């Protein structure tokens, strides 16, 4: 990702420069996405295993003629560049193709599943920010107290626990001791039951967000410590401001800049982590779609799914870049 301290004076100023900056950043997304599509396409074909083998299973008769015929049916007998160009051409016209395994069109499936992933990762991010920022501030302000130690230990634990393990433990714990309090599998659509939908993604969001929370908390703490040492904070204190105002109005906003950058980058990790967490909680998100696609070697599904998620990641970072620049009064666009 690009660092964002992009500034200069050679271009126009004010909103004009903002527009130029945004336009340029958006244009930069294009080669990134093209590069991504090539990498995804090739990587899938480099891993051993073939959709035809998965279709035939262990029982299917796999004479060379049958294999060749199946490959031909799916268009896999053509050279890679032809397959790629056809796929890329389809994307240009909004056609992501059809699944080899289920013969379903892919785009509607992705569009239906992405909100599920977004809801879970969004909640994970929200919960981690809501916990991480107050705890991080507390930890920084009360440095070297018991509260600080406790927060740091919790943070270290959060960082060290893999999300798949935490997810499994949550499932087993809730199903054993808190039966019926929260569902441990499956998804409820908001259109069916809004509160039920929130409940169905709460446990997965906690499992997914734990490490993220720890990272953001540590980031908030160290960033706050740095800011609190600065002269303007001393000045604020010297002019007699209440400590609460110094911390929350003056220090925190500046301390948030690196936290937001990290939070933006963490979106990528959350989307990656979603694959395994969705699997454990049986959520029908994009992660499940991609994972099943990989095990089935359903190339078009994986290509489309990964491209979609990666593009979202690129866009989130674009948004963070812009937000970050707005937050920091020292940053200008050019």
């Amino acid at each position: 990702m690009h660092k964002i301290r992009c500034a200069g004076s050679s271009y126009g100023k004010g909103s004009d420069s903002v527009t130029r900056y945004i336009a340029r950043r958006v244009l930069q997304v294009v080669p990134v996405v093209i590069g991504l599509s090539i990498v995804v396409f090739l990587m899938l074909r480099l891993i051993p295993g073939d959709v035809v083998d998965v279709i035939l299973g262990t029982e299917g008769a796999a004479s060379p003629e049958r294999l060749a015929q199946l490959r031909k049916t799916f268009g896999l007998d053509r050279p890679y560049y032809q397959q790629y160009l056809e796929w890329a051409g389809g994307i240009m016209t909004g056609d992501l193709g059809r699944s080899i395994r289920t013969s379903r069109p892919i785009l509607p499936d992705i569009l239906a599943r992405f909100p599920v992933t977004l809801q879970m990762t969004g909640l994970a991010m929200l919960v981690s920010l809501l916990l991480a920022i107050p705890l991080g501030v507390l930890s920084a302000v009360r440095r070297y107290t018991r509260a600080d130690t406790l927060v740091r230990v919790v943070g270290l634990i959060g960082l060290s626990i893999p999300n798949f393990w935490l997810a499994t433990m949550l499932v087993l714990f809730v199903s054993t001791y808190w039966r019926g309090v929260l569902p441990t599998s499956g998804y409820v659509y908001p259109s069916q039951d809004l509160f039920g939908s929130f409940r169905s993604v709460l446990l997965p969001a906690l499992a997914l967000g734990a490490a993220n929370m720890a990272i953001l908390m540590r980031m908030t703490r160290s960033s706050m410590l740095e800011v609190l040492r600065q002269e303007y904070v001393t000045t604020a204190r010297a002019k007699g401001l209440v400590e609460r105002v110094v911390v929350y109005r003056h220090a925190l906003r500046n301390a948030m800049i690196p936290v937001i950058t990290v939070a933006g980058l963490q979106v990528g990790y959350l989307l990656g982590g979603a694959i395994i967490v969705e699997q454990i909680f049986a959520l029908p998100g994009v992660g499940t779609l991609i994972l099943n696609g990989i095990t089935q070697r359903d190339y078009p599904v994986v290509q489309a799914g990964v491209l979609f998620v990666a593009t979202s990641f690129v866009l989130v970072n674009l948004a963070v870049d812009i937000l970050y620049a707005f937050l920091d009064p020292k940053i200008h666009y050019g």
Partner: protein
Amino acid sequence: MSDVPGPPGHTARRWSRRDAIRLFTVGGVALGLAACAPTPPRNDPKPTTAAAAPPTSVPAAAPPTSAPAAAAAPAATAAPAAAKPSESPVAAAKPTEAAKPTTAPATVTRGGKLVFGLDVNPVGLDPATTTAFASVQIYQLLYMSLGSQDYATNKTIPDLAESWRSVDPLTYEYKIRPGVRFHGGREVTSEDVKFSLDRILDPKTSAPLLSYLGPVDQIQATDKYTVRIAMKETFAPLMNVLADRRPGSIVDREVIEKNGSLQNWDGGSGPFTLAEYTPDVRVVLERYGDYYEAGKPYLDQIEFRVIPDESTRLAAIRSGEVDITILKDPKIARLVRGDPNIQALETPSFWREGSPYSFKHPQLRDPRVRQAISYATDRQEIINTVLLGEGVPTGPIPPDETEWALPITKENFPSYFPDLDKARALMKEAGVDGFKAKIHANTSYAPDVPTAQVLQAQLRRIGIELEILPTENAAFLQAQREGNFDMITGFQTNRPDPDTYLLIADSKGSPNYGKYVNPKMDEILQLGRTTLDNIERKKIYQDAQRLFDTDPSSLFLFVIKNYTPARNAVKGYVPMASGYQLPLKDTWVER
């Protein structure tokens, strides 16, 4: 991009930071709401292009059959007659056991919904093209085939065909049950049988189990309820194969013509209809009111809920989120046994763990070396270590295929009883002082890698060094098909006929991955294929199985158990060794 701070005093910006923060806050909330807004991507199996078209002809709109009860009555009574050999000169390829009159127990509760926790997402529902097990478990409740399987014995029993006989060694005749209707309402006739089987035989369909139908020459619908299948050569497995829903499902031509395939559609005449298919979430089946067996099925609805994680399925059955589920790992399956709310339903399965030997490997070509490996392998030790004792040693045909399997005794399979001295002597006789071999272990099935590890320790005792290569499923299947292995550990089942099981040792058999060749084996298998008398056939396959001891094509180890724990409310369900879910037709719930 530059990293240079802006010029000093630069303040002329019309977008304030506060504006930006407001914008992002509002945007974020809007995005959040958008995320919460979608309607479920439920695929009430409708075509994606023609949104308004109903999935299949809607069952509710189906005209009532004139007499479902009348159709059901012969089902119970005519079936035993069907089991009798016909008057034809050759013994008929007869159903080995008649359909038992399925009179409902007096206490049965009709109606209600059952939730089934499925371990794998079904990738599609077209019987002709999809053999993935999760799919099979569902579509076998949507379709009927000429025959079906007895839940306890797994023998072939009548289903859509009331009776069958062989007119001559090359011609089979099937009598279709009158009055059976597709879910769309149209009566199933011999033309539909012809269409369904021709569809499998058509290379354009790309049916994975095409070869199971053997040397079919021609299928003829001789009258409305009679089908004749002419073979190029005698083919005894035919009836067992046609009783398997994968190659044998009888499908509604109209549904296929309308939708192109049955992957997302229901073209069956079975006890349930397809109400919803949402990949990775659920498949919902509803009771088919015009099913030919009066009063069946008992359940109004079955929801197959996809829960891929084993621990989550355990949690779901414990908490009652699901009524029945599938567990694979014996360590996890044990955890439900003490639960007073759960019936731990289990049965030995047809899933056989074993390893074909590669004939490319110089030492493994020698039958004495392969026999030595069998003598050096302590199967019970593997079962105890890997499956906590919950498995059964198996030969080429799983022991629960009671009709065909040769029992594992010292007389039948001497090399299955560990004898290190004998193993070393055989190695010496073969002039082999020990060697290295690679063993691919499929990482997608929990027991495969540990099995390879125990085997590695056991074979070290006779100087064989196994290098374990843990391999992901698709890569494993590819290595297996291409014969790029020395040994493997992986599960396999080859239902529904002894011939399909033993094809692994047929020099021309497509699942003969190691390229094993033994002309005597080929001869015996060919004889089995062309012998119509079941008693005679049984003897032939017993000879074949004995040959696996002296000249083994594969190292057979054990069969695992099928664990299908059910809540106490579930009644009438019996787990089948095949793992098929046909008994859901006879299941009810008492809440």
